[in-house]
């Protein structure tokens, strides 16, 4: 063994060195923060299976939501996003990274619920600022007006020429989740879309 220290992790936008940009004095209409090293788990299973629902609720404090495009908050900052009729994206803060997967897996023993760790597979970009709506309108054909896209709603849609899940976290911000390999493209896209409003990076 030549490697004795902990392995070095790099977030999808590591190469953009966002922390350095965040230190700069900035006034932007769009504020971007990369949610680094979040915990992400895909949960699959029949949404009416009592065993699976009970297992998830036991592990996260909330059962998987069944309403299309909805999400619910669980314990410790976790959130369950319903992304297809039998598929949920479980989002947890970085502190959950080590055990979210194993907690779910053991809670789902003996049920038809299945989990897959995708924590490294996505870039999570938290967007806010007064130009948020305009930047989103440039980026997606989905109707992002509050009447149609209220807090808690999650949709899978287009973003630039790529795809994203968008979660309205609250009235003023949206979490955009793109596949990791599209992170750089999305970063370039957001820079271009936000150019006229100014772009600030939050740490």
């Amino acid at each position, binding site marked *: *063994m*030549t*490697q*004795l*220290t*902990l*392995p*070095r*992790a*790099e*977030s*999808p936008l*590591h*190469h953009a060195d966002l922390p350095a940009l965040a230190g700069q004095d900035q006034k932007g209409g769009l504020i971007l923060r990369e949610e680094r*090293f979040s915990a992400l788990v*895909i949960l*699959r*299973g029949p949404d009416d299976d009592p065993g699976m629902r009970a297992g998830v609720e036991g592990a996260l404090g909330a059962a998987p939501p069944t309403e299309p495009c909805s999400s619910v908050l669980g314990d410790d900052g976790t959130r369950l996003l319903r992304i297809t009729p*039998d*598929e949920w994206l479980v989002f947890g803060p970085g502190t959950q990274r080590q055990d979210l997967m194993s907690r779910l897996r053991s809670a789902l023993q003996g049920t*038809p619920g*299945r989990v*897959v*760790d*995708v*924590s*490294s*597979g*996505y870039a999570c970009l938290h967007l806010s600022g007064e130009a948020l709506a*305009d930047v989103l*309108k*440039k980026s*997606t*054909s*989905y*109707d992002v*007006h509050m*009447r*149609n896209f209220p807090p808690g709603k999650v949709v899978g849609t287009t973003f*630039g*020429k*790529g795809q994203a899940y968008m979660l309205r976290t609250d009235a003023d911000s949206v979490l955009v989740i793109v*596949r*990791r*390999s*599209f*992170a*750089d*493209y999305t970063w*370039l*896209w957001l820079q*271009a*879309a936000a*150019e*006229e409003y100014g772009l600030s990076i939050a740490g």
Partner: protein
Amino acid sequence: MTQRNRLPERGRVDRSRTLRFQFNGRTYTGHPGDTVASALLANGVRLVGRSFKYGRPRGVIAAGPEEPNAILQVGTDPATTTPNLRATQTELYDGLVCSSTNGWPSTERDLTSVVGKVGGRMMPPGFYYKTFMWPSSLWMTYEKGIRKAAGLGQSPSQPDPAEYDHMNHHVDVLVVGAGPAGLSAARTAARAGARVMIADEQPELGGHLLASRATISGTPAAKWVRRQTDALAREPEVTVLRRTTAVGYHDHNFVVLSERRTDHLGPDAGGVRERLHRVRAGQVVIATGAHERPLVFGNNDRPGVMTASAVGTYINRYGVVPGERLVLMTTNDHAYHTALDWHNAGREVVAVVDTRAEAGGDLPTEARACGIRVLTGHGVIEAAGGRSVTGARVAPLSADGESLAGTTHELPCDVIATSGGWSPVVHLTCHTGDKPVWSEEVLGFVPGETRQARVCAGGVNGTYALEAVIHEGVDAGKRAATAWGFEATEMRDLAVSVAEPSQDPSMKLFLVPHHKPVTRAPKQFVDFQTDVTAAAIEVAVREGYESIEHVKRYTVMGFGTDQGKLGNVNGVALTARARGKTIPETGTTVFRPAYTPVTFGALAGMERGGLLDPARFTPMHLWHVRQGAAFEDVGQWKRPWYYPRHGESMQQAVNRECLAVRQRVGMLDASTLGKIDIQGSDAREFLNRVYTNAWMKLQPGRCRYGLMLKEDGMVFDDGVTACVDDEHFIMTTTTGNAGPVLEWLERWHQTEWPELDVCFTSITDQWATVTVTGPESRNVVAKLCDDIDFSREAFPFMAWREGTVAGALARVFRISFTGELTYEINVPADYGMHLWEAVYAAGEPYGITPYGTETMHVLRAEKGFIIVGQDTDGSVTPEDLGMHWALKREKPFSFLGQRSLDRSDSRRRDREQFVGIRPLNGEAVLPEGAQAVENPSNPVPKRTIGHVTSSYYSAALGHSIALGLIERGHDRQRERLHFMTSDGRLEEAELCSTVFYDPDGARQNV
């Protein structure tokens, strides 16, 4: 030059500031609020271009988007210059530089005018049509001359530095046009609570009210407009777009708007120059108004002949009287406004020539009271003058307007304004396929039946009285909002009244007759931009063209950048007359998007340069960049192609990389391979159905190569799938097919076998993969991991293990795409770069060499491994590839594609089969795609019997190798064939086994 036609007051221009601009090399002045057209007219400039075919001098005719003549090239910068802008819609800014696009090489003295004077014989009517139809070989030659003479402007020759973008909108009600109808509709819908967008192509809201002297419930029109504008600004859910043209109306109320954001500020404004709004509207209100229709008469294209409403607009909105002495010809009362405006501006109205026998309405009466001479029952049959109007030749008309009833006399004048009535702007309604309907009452085409959720209001319906227009707007707003689920409230402030003058009926007249027949009379222009005359239409009908669409193509009427906005209805009427049919029987041509031209920049938006298409990157990309790798596009991925060292050619680098793998150890970034997590109690059964081979006995910890076919039996994808446990597998796919394979699996699961308990999750991006391959690979990976036993016995070929590599949780697969001892290490992508650097460091003592896709291709070709999509093309079966071993035909549930393998075509003896090809000249690398022939001395065309699919120089073998598909190839071992190269040479090569290197596989079984 002074602005000799500018009135001391009146209009909406700001006389306190003077703007300088250049037109055709001369400097003029204007004011903020001017368009280039109004400023040119203020300066007394008459000649703005030359005509398409005859090179005739042309002047400004209109004041809006229908202008056919005053078409400009704006800007001189080769990167930002814009062709074909209408001077009537180009806002003036200080320093603007423009020139005529029509009128190469110069407007004042034109070479094409010589052609024109010979009578346009070089281009008789139908030139365009006839050249298209048969002498197609000559078309390119003709076109060069036509394009140049036609003056369609210059495209920018340099990359455009400006920014463009698109914006998506969802609104309840979209209102197109912000005249009185549109403003009323928008306010009503907004008050009902709807999300409203209102767009207008002008810089200010108000439509024709900006040039109106009317009062609305006692309020001057301009003030009324300001009130509505302010009220809209206070509505939180209203978006107002100025300088924004609705260019396309598509099915399901998808409307495209083009917004010009900075051109009115000049070329250095910065910011987003143009924005394309993609609007999905619940309801659309069309309030696009109407364009005045000019009358057709002899020499009606002389500079100084204009529409009556344009003259009124220049006077009232811009404070510009475009001449000294006016003759106005009209078929209706409304145009008398223009005579009164001219008179009130203090200049001479020589006469109003009214084609009607009588004119007793309020406006004619007012005109007479002002001392204006009114000649009823007369028409202007011909304009006098060359480069400018000097007079109007007037003659009495018969009651039906079909012939002359007396002799001609000339009225001296320098402007002839005409009005043949109004043509509703129905263009947008037609974009979705609605047929406009002729109305005898309106004397124009009005919107027809529609399948779209839209309402029309105001002038577009042929409703012209202002009070009625506003009420129609209110009603449209109400109907749109309620149809979309809102409750409309009464708009008391829009319950207006407008005192309208009494009006006599208008006369239906399009062409003013001449003493001579149409074909002999001085040219009577119908479509100015394409130089189509009344005579040309008659000729077209005489030659047998009956459909209006054929007449259009024969004469090119409506083909200009203005799409014939001014002339189309006259053209339809004259076609009807020539055919002895009615206008409804004749119909219109089809109006298509775009309503006015749209720039390529606006259409492209942000999607250019680095954003043209997403580029996908692996977590190790930065390392490859720093090592100076050359990259190859694989799908959207950027993969390292090879890593040239200082001064190395590609071939040298690839040779070095290949030898390093064969002799020591190499490393490859294989993160782009598609990876799909498959779980469920029926996962194994599912694999059994989608793969050709057997999966029931694959044990946890083991992996297997699989071949996937489409229903037609043709190879679709291949890859290695690993068993985690009985209900959990990890499938790998080719890089390019990751998406299609996942879709394929989902499709079969969701539509055919929903009873199977199985689910699929893409984990391509979750895992980073480092391939370590070569005789020393075991030594390298063992240095990084102490919880996996890498010995041959404990970790055999086609097995996989979970463990900790370089501190990260890893899945290590012992599989091989090179034929060497290989470990593919997968770690969560966050640790990809860390793992890559750790492997590189651990391998340095062994001379580890990073290699790219080119070396990967050579190494696999040496082993005869296929690449789906390179060695296959969707028409190749596993048997063609010699992969009979991968087919398991006795499975209880036959695999996808199995039956198709027994079709007669699949069983055909002479199918092309996969073979190795060894050129006799070992230095010659056959081009991929090279065709095979048996006997090179056969006559041309030689029958080919196959082609090369992969071809490389093999450094390990010291000679070139190739793979290919050859007719009956499996039976032709050691036969010699000839391969044609792209430069016409022939290379002789011998067919052989596809496995060139280590045929027994000894190197990977160590």
